């Protein structure tokens, strides 16, 4: 399925704004992304499996708070970054 990559993470995808990845859950999808783009997962998910505080994962425009969120082929996954401050 198609995954939208935010600008802070595009150094991992060679500048691509959208990439393809597979997985029955968000966790699997992120693992698949990390196989193609090593290191990208750890910048979003900490070592305890928690979504980092300024990362937002959306599935079909709905905020996903849990990596166990199920996915089906054709879902639209967006990764967004949210940060305020200077």
């Amino acid at each position, binding site marked *: 399925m198609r995954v939208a990559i935010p600008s802070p993470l595009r150094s991992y995808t060679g500048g691509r704004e959208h990439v393809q990845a597979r997985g029955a859950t968000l966790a699997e999808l992120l693992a698949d992304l990390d196989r193609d783009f090593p*290191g990208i997962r750890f*910048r979003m998910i*900490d*070592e305890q499996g928690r979504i980092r505080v300024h990362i937002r994962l959306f599935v079909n425009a709905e905020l996903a708070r849990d990596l166990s969120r199920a996915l089906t082929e054709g879902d639209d996954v967006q990764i967004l970054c949210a940060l305020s401050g200077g």
Partner: protein
Amino acid sequence: MASRSPKKKSVVRSRTARKPAKRPKAARQPRVVLLVGTRKGAFILHGNGARTRWRTEGPHRFGEIVNHIVLDPRDRTTLLCAARAGHLGPSIFRSTDMGKTWKEAAAPPSFKPAPPGVVGDAVQHTFFLAPSAASEPDVWYAGTSPPALFRSDDGGVTWRGIDGWNDNPLRKVWCPPEDQTPDGSIMHSILVDPRDPTHLYVGCSGGGSFETTDGGATWRPFNEGVEAPANPEPFPEYGQDPHCMALHPLRPDRIYQQNHCGIYRIDRPATLWERVGRSMPAEVGDIGFPIVLHPRDPDTVWVFPMDGTTVWPRVSPDGKPAVYRSRDAGKSWERQDRGLPREQGWYTVKRQAFGADECDPVGLYFGTTSGELWMSANEGRSWSPVAAHLPHIYSVVAATLD
């Protein structure tokens, strides 16, 4: 190309065998580069031989918070950069071509996953990078926030936790997570005994300093005689707040620390720290972040005092920035402010933002919270600006290239 006759090969090292033999050069100063970590990336300043001109190159890791960028003094090639972007988790980046290209560590510092039901720690920042002793060429240590210790055995590519510290049940007793150090409590000083790299000291803000003699398997507090802030007991076993610690490579039994509660020195095997900052002028005090050693004289040390009175403004006392030098291991101090602003100078120099090169006379370099980089080519007697308008400076390392 030079011919490679057997005769030549027998007398010329293989690394240089393809080049004609060079004439021996006149004695000259080593080439210095300044590695500057800032809140918005890293900068590398290349100096000429006389250290009178500097070319600023960068930013590297643009937009990322760079707490430390360090050149391996053992191979003078491997550059490690501890960075995190505002949105993204922390990592370590590695370059072997002075920053032309960077490659991320394959396994950056991270805690082990916690057992189910337990809230596990996550590295928020890698704050401090320390090459180990010369006898361990590819070994590095990294100190993080929350205060934890990681080690790489392959030049910074992969990192693993030092279990004796990270999994130690006393870790959070010694360094409580609720410590309110800005940006989180940190492990900021990792000192490796060059005679025995299993002997280390670490410094943790809001926790104190700690010692191991078995490579990190076991630790003990190392704070005797050091005052602790915010503690009803003035000299507890732990809970001190070292800001920066330094061990002299030529006299590894001597350690200095700039602490939240003054400047201290110890000469092992003594166990009692001495507050040598008591001899600083009372109107200046002995509070500050960094402390810098002379590369060849263990009695000479520099500090950059800040205002630690009233509400702790943490800027140059009275708006008059100055370096203080001791040449007698802290018994007496002299002010070195020629060239620095005479008034209305309200910056702070962070704990990793003051460094010395290996030249003779020693060059000193400090970066400010206001993005200015200053240097002295004469061991502090006079100062001149090297760069201005950089982002908030977190670290300055003066590295020797050759």
